[in-house]
């Protein structure tokens, strides 16, 4: 067994430098690496390119890095619900590459999988296809999309073991598994760090081979973006 445990978030994020490309798991505020984002703010690294489906809200998630102007470029599929983001983007302070959600997921997976490019119908005929090769398969036009990789991928899991095997909870899984595959170095923060042998090998979502560092997160606010309820 190869031990991936680091003692804290500070150690986990060693080596992240200005100008690097990071992938961050999560969908909205669900399944985001809260401990690592806080540490990135504390570290003050800047000029980051962040690949993340969303950009958080003004005062949580990646919004915290946006406030500190640490992000140079965002690669996302949906960035609503964040006024500071919209301001920086419309003013041109922030570069933004918006790509279809399915293509984002597949491009991250491709990056981790050694597939440099693939054809997809998503985005054909739209500005997403600008400058991209178009080819018809089965009578339908497709565009060629390239793989995405990152210097560091930072993911958040529910449970993880010492060997880096991860299990996510419910819809907090989302982009985390693909990004875990696509990071040159992948960091996992977990709600519960367990000894090897504690996780059923049949129930693991991300095999430890994709994870280089794992640590026990100290706090998880797990903020809810849209608390919607029904009446009893």
């Amino acid at each position: 067994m190869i031990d991936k445990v680091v003692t804290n978030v500070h150690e986990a994020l060693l080596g992240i430098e200005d100008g690097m490309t990071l992938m961050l798991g999560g969908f909205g505020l669900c399944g985001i690496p809260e401990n690592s984002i806080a540490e990135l703010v504390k570290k003050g690294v800047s000029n980051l390119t962040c690949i993340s489906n969303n950009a958080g809200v003004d005062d949580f998630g990646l919004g915290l890095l946006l406030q500190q102007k640490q992000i140079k470029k965002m690669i996302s599929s949906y960035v609503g619900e964040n006024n500071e983001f919209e301001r920086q983007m419309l003013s041109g302070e922030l570069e933004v590459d918006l790509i279809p959600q399915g293509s984002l997921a597949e491009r991250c997976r491709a990056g981790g999988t050694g597939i440099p490019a693939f054809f997809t119908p998503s985005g054909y005929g739209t500005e997403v296809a600008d400058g991209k090769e178009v080819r018809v398969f089965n009578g339908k036009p497709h565009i060629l999309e390239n793989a995405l990789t990152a210097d560091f991928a930072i993911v958040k899991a529910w449970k993880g073991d010492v060997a880096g095997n991860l299990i996510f909870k419910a819809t907090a899984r989302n982009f985390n598994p693909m990004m875990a595959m696509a990071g040159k170095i992948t960091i996992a923060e977990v709600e519960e760090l367990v000894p090897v042998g504690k996780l059923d090998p049949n129930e693991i979502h991300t095999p430890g081979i994709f994870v280089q560092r794992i640590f026990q997160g100290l706090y998880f606010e797990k903020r809810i973006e849209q608390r919607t309820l029904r009446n009893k």
Partner: protein
Amino acid sequence: MALDKDGIAKRIAQELQDRFYVNLGIGIPTLVANYIPEGISVEFQSENGILGMGPFPFSGEEDADLINAGKQTITALNGAVYFDSATSFAMIRGKHVQLTVLGAMEVSENGDIANWKIPGKMVKGMGGAMDLVASAENIIVAMMHTNKKGESKLLKRCSLPLTGVACVKKIVTNLAVLEILPEGGFKLTERAPGVSVEEIQLATEGKLLVEGEIPEMNFN
């Protein structure tokens, strides 16, 4: 009388068929789940990673780890399953989802749709919409017939950046149900109760095709 949002959802719910897997977009489409016809089984997929989505939770039972693509807290039905985003779009791109219902800012008479960007003003991003419209065999657009300024959203050509080309097959608005013909044009098939063909014509900038008597929507 023009329909309200729930009326639109209710009419779209009539399009659900037994054994359909369905993806509902944010806004009006989400309401469709409240009006599933009796006697059929459908399952709702949300592209952030759940199949078998249930109703909103009761107070105190909400779980930050269990949301839909609109980031709303939800519940999971018996038989539900969670999966990652790549698998989710495998379902969508691979045509395993039978029906997609989504909102739009504009639809053109050849089935183009625009719903993700107003240059220089609003740029929220396309989310999963481009994948959904590029892949679904069966796309219904749920929207108001006109925008807040009273301008038609059913156009000859879309003025906004496109989400997808020649993909919309059916539109349900507060005024009417319309099909988009393969050769182009909005074919009027139903009127909202009490709404006249003239009203619909007036609110439609694109080519409207009216053949014979147009029935009112039936909500029985």
